[in-house]
């Protein structure tokens, strides 16, 4: 019974393509997040939604567009992929903002 699940786990795609990563949590949490982890393992928040409302939007290129159809889902769509987008993207959730965050297993994106 996976708490935070994201798909796909691995994604290899060419520059310029558009791709989406889906995320679902069954914890009943109000808040969901997308984090990006670079090659040096640094975790940086990208977006946060609370009850489907965007509350955090860090300095992320507008090629990245999150969508939250309901509070259990937060998808990430990326347009015109660039080499520098290669990273691991983690979806996460918490009961409310600032509380313990529970992470998914990550989506490894490689742009070639």
């Amino acid at each position, binding site marked *: 019974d996976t708490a*935070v699940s994201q798909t796909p786990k691995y994604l290899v795609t060419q520059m310029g393509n558009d791709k989406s990563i889906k995320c679902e949590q069954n914890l009943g949490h109000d808040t969901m*997040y997308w*984090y990006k982890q670079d090659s*040096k*393992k*640094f*975790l*940086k*928040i990208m977006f*946060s939604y609370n009850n489907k409302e965007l*509350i*955090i939007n860090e300095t992320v290129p507008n090629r990245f567009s999150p969508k939250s159809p309901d509070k259990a889902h937060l998808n990430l769509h990326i347009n015109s992929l660039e080499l520098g987008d290669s990273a691991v993207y*983690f979806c*996460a959730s918490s009961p409310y*903002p*600032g*509380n*313990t*965050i*529970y*992470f*998914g*297993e*990550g989506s490894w994106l490689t742009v070639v």
Partner: protein
Amino acid sequence: GENVGLHLPTLSVQEGDNSIINCAYSNSASDYFIWYKQESGKGPQFIIDIRSNMDKRQGQRVTVLLNKTVKHLSLQIAATQPGDSAVYFCAETGGSQGNLIFGKGTKLSVKP
């Protein structure tokens, strides 16, 4: 800035020894701190947390110490085992909207 840093990027210990992983934080207003463990190929997992009204909290084989005077956080792992090998992150509620900000991570390697 509101960055959480680490003194030691890598730590190698002998199996059975105690490990201490350190973290310095810069936001004196942060009131909630968490340690996460990230094994290879997986998402970060919650280990233990502590609120700013406490100095010490113990879990199973792990202890977190908080020194607010010098803004320092540490994770102690007793009788370190090979399964403890992972990257460890500290996080603080130092960001906007109270979101968690993660430190750079310390890689712990346990030698059998």
